[in-house]
């Protein structure tokens, strides 16, 4: 017997929930006991016999689905609610009109020799060897709602979808000559059922079940892709699913219907899979104890390794730290090993290379670095970040020694653009209203909570150094965290695409436990002109990340954490040097 390993019942908006509950009720009814098309108790649409009254026996040749397919005018009346069902029409007038004898009905009846299943088409079926699945397609289920889809990925194991987003499909509407309104399309995403690898080519027969109890199977040879590629395909499908719109609200609606949680699970899976395969090579001197482990994920060529290490680790105090460079691009493994040998000969730093192939560089690399770190302090430092002062490591150590523990458990620095303006002085949230342009329609007003960074256009020399302060979050571009605290928080979740919001997510979990992150006046250059390593390249991926962040945290953010100096973190009156509420940044002290 097939197991049902995954039943996803997302929270739906009230209007859709009603519809889904109706569908579910219909799906759970036993075929034969509650024939499709029969009106639920208590309702008496036109032509229906009230409950309890004696009914004429149904002609054995009558089949509801075939009847509606044979007579589109009746089907349209049923769809509009004028008629309760095809059976109602048959009882009312069809019997006397000898509809069951009509050639179009007899032909269909003969062709199917039984109730006909609604038309189904699978447009795409993509499966990863681990079992992640993406399926898109449509069904003309106007008269027999599609209620369940199953896909066996290996014997006894199958994906089972009983609630999934239904999507408007203008192309299908044209094909079946239907008026706009019915959502023919579907988008199915599933993370693997368990950790066992599968033969993805065997998963080629999705089974569709309709409210009438009819089932139909469609054969489709799947395309095999990696989990990362499949995730990206799912993200790419979102704008299509939303009829070309990149309206966050529309896509949020789709993500809410199980798609979002499945993509999140696949994101985590991508990182976990990469974690299982790695090579660690250590270079340079070994100390018995390190003040911290500086973790950088390589992006681009390995020729960046030596100069970056020289600049980050060439100053006083840096020899107390170990440097970990995670290389996730297999093409750079050999150049990175060569660079590490040069670093060993020229710099004399304690260096560890982690070679770990992965589609999600930032998350995989950072987790790998954290896994093998040999100190109690993890320092995540983006390749685009370089210390402004050569003695930064000394100052970082002094900070850990001298500042109250609560201010250093999770801390960040001040990241400056090369022109001296402040690029990142901590994260904050702000509620903003904006207008979303829409084609051939009035713009729509949207109010949303947005994640922002404290910035300032004036060069540092033109203003006072800001004081240390608690903030809602600090970026992983430079994030220093007590390792025990990091592990207590559960580390980075890795549910976001390309680790985009993992940093603020970690910080919010810390706030939740009463320990906000602090920004200290440790200045760095931030050469972020190049694409950031954790940038999500697709718009829909960015919307997914935003969806996940807000679905998880909006309840805590609003209203206590709104603003650049939120009341939750700053119960005392504002210092004039603190960032302004406008978010434009750090204001010079009077």
């Amino acid at each position: 017997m097939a197991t049902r390993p995954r039943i996803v019942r997302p929270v739906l908006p009230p209007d859709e929930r009603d519809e889904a509950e109706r569908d579910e009720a219909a799906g759970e009814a036993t075929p034969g006991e509650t024939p499709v098309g029969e009106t639920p108790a208590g309702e008496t649409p036109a032509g229906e016999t009230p409950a309890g009254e004696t009914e004429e026996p149904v002609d054995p040749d009558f089949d509801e689905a075939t009847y509606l397919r044979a007579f589109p005018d009746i089907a349209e009346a049923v769809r509009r609610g004028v008629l309760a069902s095809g059976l109602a029409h048959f009882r009312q007038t069809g019997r006397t009109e000898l509809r069951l004898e009509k050639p179009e009905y007899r032909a269909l009846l003969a062709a199917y020799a039984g109730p006909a299943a609604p038309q189904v088409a699978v447009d795409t079926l993509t499966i990863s060897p681990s079992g992640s699945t993406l399926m898109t397609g449509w069904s003309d289920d106007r008269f027999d709602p599609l209620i369940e889809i199953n896909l066996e990925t290996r014997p006894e194991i199958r994906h089972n979808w009983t609630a999934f987003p239904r999507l408007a499909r203008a192309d299908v509407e044209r094909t079946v000559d239907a008026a706009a309104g019915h959502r023919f399309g579907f988008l199915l995403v599933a993370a693997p059922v368990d950790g066992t690898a599968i033969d993805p080519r065997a998963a080629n027969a999705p089974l569709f079940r309709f409210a009438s109890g009819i089932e139909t199977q469609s054969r489709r040879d799947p395309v095999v892709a990696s989990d990362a590629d499949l995730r990206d395909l799912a993200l790419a499908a979102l704008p299509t699913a939303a009829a070309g719109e990149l309206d966050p609200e529309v896509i949020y609606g789709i993500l809410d219907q199980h798609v979002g949680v499945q993509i999140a699970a696949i994101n985590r899976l991508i990182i976990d899979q990469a974690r299982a395969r790695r090579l660690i090579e250590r270079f340079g001197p070994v100390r018995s104890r390190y003040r911290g482990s500086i973790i950088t994920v390589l992006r681009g060529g390995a020729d960046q390794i030596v100069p970056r290490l020289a600049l980050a680790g060439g100053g006083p105090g840096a020899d107390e730290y170990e440097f970990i460079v995670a290389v996730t691009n297999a093409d750079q493994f050999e150049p990175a090993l060569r660079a590490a040998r040069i670093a060993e000969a020229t710099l004399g730093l304690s260096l560890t290379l982690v070679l770990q192939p992965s589609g999600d560089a930032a998350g995989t690399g950072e987790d790998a670095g954290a896994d093998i770190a040999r100190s109690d302090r993890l320092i995540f430092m983006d390749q685009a970040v370089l210390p402004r002062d050569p003695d930064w490591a000394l100052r970082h150590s002094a900070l850990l020694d001298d500042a109250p523990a609560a201010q250093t458990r999770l801390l960040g620095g001040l990241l400056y653009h090369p022109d001296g303006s402040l690029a990142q002085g901590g994260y904050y949230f702000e509620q903003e209203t904006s207008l979303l342009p829409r084609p051939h329609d009035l713009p729509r007003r949207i109010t949303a909570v947005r994640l922002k960074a404290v910035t300032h256009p004036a060069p540092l020399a033109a203003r006072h150094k800001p004081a240390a302060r608690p903030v809602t979050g600090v970026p992983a571009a430079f994030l220093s965290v007590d390792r025990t605290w990091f592990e207590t928080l559960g580390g980075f979740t890795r549910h976001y695409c390309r680790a985009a919001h993992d940093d603020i997510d970690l910080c919010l979990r810390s706030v939740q436990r009463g320990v906000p992150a602090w920004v200290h006046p440790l200045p760095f250059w931030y050469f972020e002109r190049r694409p950031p390593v954790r940038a999500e390249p697709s718009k829909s991926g960015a919307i997914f990340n935003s969806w996940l962040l807000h679905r998880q945290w909006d309840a805590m953010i609003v209203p206590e954490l709104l603003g650049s100096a939120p009341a939750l973190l700053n119960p005392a009156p504002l210092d004039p040097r603190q960032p302004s509420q406008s978010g434009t940044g750090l204001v010079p002290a009077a």
Partner: protein
Amino acid sequence: MSGTRKILLVSLGHPELVLGGSPVVCQELFDELRTRAGVECSMLAAVDREAGDVHQPKAGITGFDGRDGVYLLHQTDHDHWLHRNNEPLLVEAFVALLRTLEPDVVHFHHFLSIGLDLIGTVRRVLPACRILFTFHEFAAICAADGHMVRRTDRSLCDRASPVRCHQCLPDRQPDEFMIRKMWLDHTLGQVDHFTCPSHFMIEPYVTWGIPRDRISHVTNGQRSRVVRPMLEPLGRPRDRFGFFGLLHDDKGVTVLLRAVSLLREAGFTQLRIDINGGGIQHASPAVRREIEAFQEAERQLPAAERIVAFNGAYSLDQIQSRMARVDWTIVPSVWWEIFGLVISEAWMFGRPVICSNVGGMAERVTHEGDGLHFEMGDPASLAATIRRACTEDGLWERLHAAVPQPPSRAAMADGYLALYESA
């Protein structure tokens, strides 16, 4: 430490394998230091494909032709942007050489083809070793050939900044220039003392960030190339001029050719110009076209009407015979011309120098004292100067009498030894 001071010179190229001034200077210093008591000198010369079959890309470091104390660093996979090595074998071979020689002083002449990372390697492997660095041009300040000539309009540049440098090299973002500067600051920050062969170079480097107390002037010096007495002609006008050097853009040979055209148009043709030098393949296409077109037009003229003779490249062994054919040496460079070894070579043979009025040329040649200046890059100014040199009675004799002896290699070695000792 024993009484012997062990010195390792690191050179951009070997003068017998590549063209260029700094390898010549480094070789001269090596040869001189080898004669000094209490000094044990070695030289490591970086070579690349330009050295032909001598270059062995997988060899790391080798000896050279059985010469005592001379090694070749076989450059390969070099990062020409940050001037660093991508080949670990080479760096590891350098470490091994340091551990073998254990020099008290490592003196870098340039970092091109050598690698800035080798400076840090010396500091790490031999922490007590004194490190000297000689700037032979502006390569640290200027990523565009190290000449500080703006590629936008060929004007002379007086300072670097991320945006200005990006304008010269638009394929590089301003951020990249900032990182390059940080990298140079870091690597050069491990040098104990810097030198440059001309005084005027000090100010740009101090402005750029080298501490003033860590940079000083030590002249370039050469052995004399005079192998026999010069036979000076009597009773004829001093109307023969020589250009010595590479035929690439910044040496300004086109300024000289345009000046000749102006003189010819003005009907002044009683002069002769010898162009001595090769390397036209290093010129930009436009300059190359201009030189070659002039050369072809000159060839088409009857022999009696020709003014300019293209004599081709020469070796230092031939320099006396080339100098003997001319009365004046023209140095029309359109960049700062850091030192101008050709000026020293002209002076060896008593030839007054006519040069551009900037940089190392203006610093060394005294206008109206031992030579003449003209406005850099201005053919009309050069044409007027040439005409004056040909026609003004007693001018050549006055300037010739004032031509100084060029700095000797012994003077150069003394200057460096003083810095080696001041550890």
